[in-house]
């Protein structure tokens, strides 16, 4: 079943003579349980593709559907709700909140939205966070602040954070771009496992070892996805 569907997506930065088009009708499908690696040279628009898929940035044209919900042409409030419900995002630079412990960072997505309409019970979120922390072997450092963690530990917390709301789609932007080879291998193995659980995973990377674990590799060239 296709969970991520993008058709004829275009995106241009700047205007006039300074305009630079990075996506020129990009099409992408990712099915549940599939891990798709998007590769391409630096500045080719890989991260932009993930951003427009997640609704973090607006595409100029084209249609995007994530887990049955439209991303293009909807109000920001709907997009926000869609992100909270259906998308987990993993960043190259982890983006852990420095004042929060690893565990609190994992719990962060459970705390957005109205306290009255928060997804699931607080206990349920906490239980799921603890399961993820145990599964990712982070229990001993769960109460450490980000600056006290290694890069690999930080990225594992970031992955746990992406999964805490049990989203059907995970988008990973250069997830091992800032890690040593050993930590990178652990993170790739985790992402593979995430896909094997039935989630659709789209991963942007320029590293061959990352592309190697993917079910399918697509290349972004001249703003279009090939392969």
């Amino acid at each position, binding site marked *: 079943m296709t969970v991520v569907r993008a058709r004829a997506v275009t995106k241009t930065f700047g205007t006039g003579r300074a305009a630079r088009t990075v996506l020129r009708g990009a099409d992408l499908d990712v099915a549940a349980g599939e891990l798709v690696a998007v590769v391409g040279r630096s500045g080719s628009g890989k991260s932009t593709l993930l951003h427009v898929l997640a609704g973090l940035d607006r595409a100029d044209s084209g249609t995007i559907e994530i887990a049955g919900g439209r991303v293009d042409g909807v109000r920001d409030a709907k997009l926000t709700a869609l992100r909270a419900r259906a998308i987990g995002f993993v960043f190259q630079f982890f983006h852990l909140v420095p004042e929060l412990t690893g565990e609190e960072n994992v719990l962060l997505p459970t705390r957005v939205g109205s306290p009255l309409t928060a997804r699931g019970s607080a206990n349920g979120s906490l239980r799921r*966070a603890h399961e993820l922390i145990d599964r990712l072997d982070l229990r001993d450092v769960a109460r450490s602040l980000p600056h006290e963690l290694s890069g690999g530990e930080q990225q594992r917390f970031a992955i746990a954070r992406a999964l805490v709301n049990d989203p059907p789609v995970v988008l990973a932007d250069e997830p091992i771009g800032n890690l040593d080879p050993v930590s990178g291998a652990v993170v790739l193995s985790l992402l593979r496992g995430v896909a094997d659980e039935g989630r659709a995973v789209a991963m942007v990377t320029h590293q061959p070892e990352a592309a190697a674990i993917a079910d399918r590799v697509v290349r972004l060239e001249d703003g279009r996805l090939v392969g």
Partner: protein
Amino acid sequence: MRRGRTLLAAAIVFAAALVAGTALTAAVSLSGGFERAADRADLPDLIVRFDATARGDVERRLAALPNVETTRYRTEFNGVWLQGGGGRATNGAVHAVEPGRRGYAIARGRDLRGSGETVVEAGVAREWGLEPGDTLSIAGGRLRIVGVSISPDNVAYPLAKAPRVYVDRRDLGRIGDDVNLALAWLRDPARADVTLAQARAVSFGLDDLRFITRDGVRVLIGQAAGIVIALLVAFSLVAVTTAGIMLGASARSEVARRLPSIGVQRAVGFSRASVVREQAARGALLAAPAAAVGLAAGALAMRGAAERLLAALNEIGPGAGLLWWLAGAWLAIVALVAAASAWPAWSATREPIAALLRGGELAVGKRPRRWLRPRPTSPSPPHNAGNRRLSTVSRIVSALGGGGGGLGALGARLASARRVRWAATVAVLGAASATLVLLLALASLLVSLRDDPGTVGKTYALTANLPPSAVAEVERIPGVAKAAERTAVEASAAFSLGQPLRLVGFARGAEDFEAPPLAEGRRRRAADEAEVGVGLADALGLRPGSRLAVALPGGREGRFRVAGVVRALENDGRIAYVREDRLDALGASGNTVVAVRLERGADRAAVGRGLGALGARPSEAAAATTRNRGFLGVLATVLRIVAVTVALVCLVVLAQALVLTARERRPTLALLRTVGAGRASIARVLAGACAAVLVPAALLGVAVEVLVLGPAVASLAAGYAGLSLAPTAGHLALAAGALAALGAAAVAVVARRVEREAVVAGLREEA
């Protein structure tokens, strides 16, 4: 972004300068108003009133005084019918003056020159809409108004009961040679006391003799505004100090933000001195225009109200003189900002350059200090740390309901991560909220001083113009707890005739009808004992055990032993409480009324009707200030302007703190939006950040008001009285509500700004 930060820093300088401009204008305008008016009007050093006497006789007596340089004489007619413009009165005061020094200043038009002319006092002109060239009817005759005067020997009409006009003595040939008012200018005004004693010696035979010196006039004018102006001036001094704290804290936090770039400068070879000079110059350049605009806005906002206040008192504003003060304030603000920018730079450049490059005060990468740090954990922590690891600040915020499932607490952590700025913001908001609470307490005190005689130590609520024999009848009126005869006599100190004082006598056994708090000594017991106000004790150097010698209106002298010194507010504390039978024995004539104390819950109107049935016109017991509604309205305007200024300052400071937090934590806010936080969630984070500064600031503000500002203002304004400027629960609730509303406004504005920004813009910045 840099432009936005610069604008915010300029905004805080503007806000502080606004407060300083407002306060300075109030302080400079109100504090020297009498002196300016007296100098311009050439107010005499001594004014003597007496029953009509032949001019030659009085002139002969005054000529015998060696210190007297010049004298002029007037005849004052009271109860004269006046009509002109839009007003009329049956109690007009017409002063027939002679050529030479007048003792009043011409504000518009010109002075009297010939017959058929009159000069009207400025209050009369203002109230009745009169201008030079108009006509005024005086006792049926029509005179042309040629000028408008400022007469600083009394407050302006209608604060003064009678409208006053001046006419040329030659116009009133029928009045003969009698005069009842002498003005004397002394060669050495510092020796006025000696001259007064001599004048008293040569004035035997003059009836109803009353002396008043220029200092005495100042005291009397001051009584008209009660304690109000002193409170405003004292408040202004405190407000200027608060503005200084705001400027210092703001400039310091600006430099703290620049520490990494200072580190870069040091790394490439800049000397400490050059870095400090640059920071000082940056601060000064930023402060100069913002301070100028803020001071000008503050001065303009306050000027009108201050001038109306001064006009009501027949006093004169500082005019262009205020510009010098404002220029001085501008220089002081620029220097303060430059110094506050230079000092932290100087201090920071002592640190290793590597520490500066790491970001100086940044909490990221550091363990927070102990009180901000999560609680210690066990070596093998259970999975329940989510709520237990909140810092002290964020736990307070969560407990106050700002938690919002942890987002409020997160906001509190974000705001308190930059500790120096957090402390500076708390200090500034604390000072502003202390000022706000003080303002509310001040307003309530003014109302109490106007309406509640209990504030000045009076336990009776009504007075009735009845003879002492009616006391028993009054006590039979339902609702009356007790009644007693009260006599007030306006007198002066026998050894210091320029010092006016009020003697208040109660019948024996009714001393507790009026009992201001005792500052020193004990209550009076014997007939020859007195309790004196601190104001009088200070003026005459009295202490318990001293002798108070009083020159009474009839010419007799009374002596009392001072038993105690009391914190009385009435008459600026220039008051002495004595036994009424002692006043009788001295033959002192004064204003005698029956003071009426009501039972708890008594119907005041019904008691008033009962007194009316006895033939009396009951009056509310007088408190400390004038009852003139217009005057009180002007005072209310002044307070409102100051309150709005302070609220504006709070809003600017809060918005600045939130905008800076939001800008510096763009990646965190962008991350929250990535994981599904909408505007409401972002608002909860910002509300937590807001509460993290507002809650401690409010607590600090209350503490500062109760422990420092309130006592300081009360003491500066009236050291002679036991004023309380402690806030009530209502004041605190109002201030808290105002701060919460301002905080909500700041949160709403900043949350909207955050939401408008693309999420990816924040994610592109490294967290």
